């Protein structure tokens, strides 16, 4: 990031012929002190991030060493030693729960977010667009635990009483989709967790998509309109192809948030079953909700280590999606052509 005014900071180079003497070089002792203070705060941020990874890695060493890859592939989570089951930590059910809820949340939230973003940018007059995006983006300000209590007392009964039976009557007879809604509707299950997550990541995907759509060049849109295309044809022909990479980036940012979201999911997902079943109507765990529920119960060193490894897993996966999202969106906002992204 070289800025034009930084030229002023360079040492002036006197030319032998014209300048009678050197230009006075500005040197102020305060500059050194200031840059050290500012710089050390910034270095602290890097140290903090490294400390996160190192400390979590260090504390999960015991679990990594003892279970290795079976931690990810195994599905037996037995923190307590019994005659039948030796102690083992296989996080597959939690990983499964996280993948399912995040994926379903993404499927639910992305169309809503893209639709709203298109309305805000392409259809609504400026003032209305501003109001609409303000209202939807306010959802970010609601704390996770508030979503949790709303989910527990409003959404769960609604899902149990209305949505889930309706889904069963519609999807039940269809061969593959029917398996998704098998079982008794109980409300506290993977589906409800997904709906809460969808609501929570909606504003994230919306604000990224809106920003991307606002950066689509006018010329292409106007060109298509001039050729007599309808509004919808302009959107599918000129706007969405250009914005595709950025919208995928927004969805990934939403996915990263969904993966790490803890409290709201913990309160509605049931936290009881560790079996993996295709039905969305079974209660489950996500990685994050397993940590929240079991952290204070971890009484043995290896149990604790296993839980920290869950945290490490969460940290790595969320960071990977964040980095991907970052590159996808920055590419467009800096003027690259998304179709080659």
């Amino acid at each position, binding site marked *: 990031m070289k800025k034009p005014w930084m030229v002023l900071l360079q040492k002036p180079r006197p030319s032998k012929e014209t300048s009678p003497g050197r230009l006075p070089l500005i040197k102020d002792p305060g500059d050194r002190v200031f840059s050290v203070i500012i710089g050390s705060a910034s270095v602290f941020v890097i140290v903090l991030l490294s400390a996160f990874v190192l400390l979590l890695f260090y504390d999960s060493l015991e679990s990594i060493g003892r279970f290795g890859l079976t931690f990810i592939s195994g599905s037996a989570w037995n923190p307590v030693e019994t005659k039948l089951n030796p102690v083992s930590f296989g996080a597959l059910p939690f990983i499964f729960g996280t993948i399912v809820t995040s994926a379903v949340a993404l499927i639910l939230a992305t169309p809503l977010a893209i639709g709203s973003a298109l309305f805000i940018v392409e259809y609504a007059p400026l003032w209305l667009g501003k109001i609409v995006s303000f209202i939807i983006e306010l959802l970010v*300000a609601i704390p996770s635990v508030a979503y949790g209590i709303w989910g527990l007392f409003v959404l769960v009964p609604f899902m149990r009483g209305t949505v889930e039976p309706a889904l069963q009557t519609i999807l039940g007879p269809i061969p593959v989709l029917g398996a998704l809604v098998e079982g008794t509707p109980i409300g506290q299950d993977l589906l409800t967790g997904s709906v809460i997550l969808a609501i929570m990541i909606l504003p994230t995907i919306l604000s990224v998509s809106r920003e991307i759509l606002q950066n689509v060049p006018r010329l292409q849109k106007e060109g298509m309109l001039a050729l007599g295309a309808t509004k919808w044809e302009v959107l599918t022909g000129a706007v969405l192809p250009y914005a595709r990479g950025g919208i995928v980036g927004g969805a990934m940012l939403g996915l990263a948030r969904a993966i790490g979201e803890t409290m709201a999911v913990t309160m509605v997902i049931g936290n009881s079953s560790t079996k993996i079943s295709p039905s969305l109507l079974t209660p489950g765990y996500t990685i994050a909700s397993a940590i929240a529920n079991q952290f204070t119960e971890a009484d043995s060193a290896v149990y604790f280590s296993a839980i920290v490894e869950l*945290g490490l897993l969460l940290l790595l996966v969320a960071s990977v999606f964040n980095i991907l999202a970052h590159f996808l969106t920055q590419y467009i906002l800096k003027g690259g052509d998304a179709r080659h992204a």
Partner: protein
Amino acid sequence: MRDLELARIRSRKISAAFFYGLIILATVLSISILFIIIYHIFVSGVGALDFDFFTKIPKPYGEAGGGIAPAILGTLIMLLLAALIAIPIGVATAIFIVEYGETKLATSVRFAVELLAELPSIVVGIFIWALVVRNLTGYSGFAGSLALAVIMIPIIARSVEEILKLVPDTLREAALALGTPRWKVVLFIVIPTVLPGMFTSIMLAVARAAGETAPLLLTSLGNAFFNFNLRRPMAAMPLQIYSYAISPYDDWHKKAWGATLLLIAIIGILSGAVKYFTRRWNHESR
């Protein structure tokens, strides 16, 4: 031939109208979510807000009455301490990223801030637990404050960075050309120009941290009594909401709703009213 063309145009128009309808539907659905949630929180919570709610300590298991005063107090104490820790670090980081942006270090700092800001908050809880709770203090208000500070730092750094970028480079150039040293340019020219904006973004970060639950669960734990000692477990509103909401008692459910309403009101005041005041401040100084 003409008829065929007309029919094609009609079908194109119909599909345009159809998708317009879908887009409107998506928008209406997205907007209504906020109103539905706020409506439920208001209706269920407003009844719980009486005098006792703000002044009394929680009653033992299952007994009706009492309040959540320790939680309100705990949240305020921990937020204040967290802000005191996070503001200098966050603002300094932002200044470094913008004003020393030519260095390689600034690029990596920016990247680190990005990643920190998107860390799952429960991971922050585990980190502070392993770093502070396990060895130094046990579950404590201090650890809770640190966790909230870690959440605030990247948010402050990111938003203050955006604000600092708004200062036109010509302003910096003018000052430098007059022989002003760089640190004076930053402290006495750049920052005063954007002070209201910085204040707003810091308050937004504090508001974000006010609602954090997961990290506090692992660090400050919660407490049913008044506690001013930062070395002891401390109550907080989000923790109180969580433990009351998952309890089996109706009275506690009502209090959880009340606390949620209060928490959202506090967040709204921190983020909304501050914006209003800084706008007025801007007008007056001009």
